[in-house]
């Protein structure tokens, strides 16, 4: 089995119940096709960078799972049929998976989800997955980090060849 990650975007103008249906459907498909669902993460409604099918909003869902190539094939076939799904992306994350380790990971995640009853509302900054979902929050530290990162090597690497600059130049 391989490890995959799939994101699908549900049409943002649909009512919550309908969105829920569109999420559960795919979680079920993964398991029905012999896959193991490791984690399901709802990023929630987000503004799209451009309009798709007349809507500017989409509900993003990320699922991590282990499965066979056939699992993905069936999953994507369903995405294509479903009008509620406006975009999808499936990526392979690993060639081989250890089923026992997956089960452990799955349980760990379920426990973590229980500890945090409202993961969507205000994700903790230390949870890496949640931070990714809330990109807006991450902006200031990321920007702060960048020039600092560029500084270190400049001083370290080119003592003879080139003068050490402050930061990466962007013209």
């Amino acid at each position, binding site marked *: 089995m391989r490890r995959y990650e799939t*994101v699908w*975007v549900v049409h943002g103008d649909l009512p919550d119940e309908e969105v829920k249906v569109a999420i559960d459907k795919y979680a079920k498909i993964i398991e029905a096709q012999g896959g193991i669902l490791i984690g399901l993460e709802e990023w929630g409604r*987000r503004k*799209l*960078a*451009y309009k*798709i099918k007349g809507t*500017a909003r*989409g509900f*993003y869902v*990320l699922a991590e799972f282990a499965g066979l190539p056939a699992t993905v094939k069936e999953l994507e076939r369903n995405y294509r049929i479903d009008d509620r799904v406006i*975009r999808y*992306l499936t*990526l392979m994350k690993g060639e081989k998976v250890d089923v026992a380790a997956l089960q452990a990971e799955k349980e760990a995640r379920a426990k973590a989800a229980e500890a945090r009853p409202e993961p969507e509302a205000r994700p903790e900054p230390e949870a890496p997955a949640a931070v*990714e*979902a809330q*990109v807006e929050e*991450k*902006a200031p530290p*990321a*920007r702060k*980090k*960048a020039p600092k*990162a*560029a500084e*270190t*090597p*400049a001083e370290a*690497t*080119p003592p003879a*060849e*080139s*003068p*050490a*600059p*402050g*930061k*990466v*130049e*962007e*013209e």
Partner: protein
Amino acid sequence: MPVVPRRKRKQFFVRRKVCRFCVDSNLLIEYKDVNTLRQFVTERGKIIPRRISGNCARHQRHLTRAIKQARLLALMPYIPPLPTS
């Protein structure tokens, strides 16, 4: 830029550009991390070339792929949004 060049070359100050991702291995290139990716596109949403951003070939390649994946999912624009919308 407050740079004190130690050597001149053809009247230009040579600024050393370094690949940000080689320097900081914690900085991952992923389509989900839109804020990092956004630093590598222009205002018009175009991917900044390696010659300007200073990325190494490998990371530029990963970056390009990640940006394109993000575009597909409408996390990033292909073209800048219209001012009226």
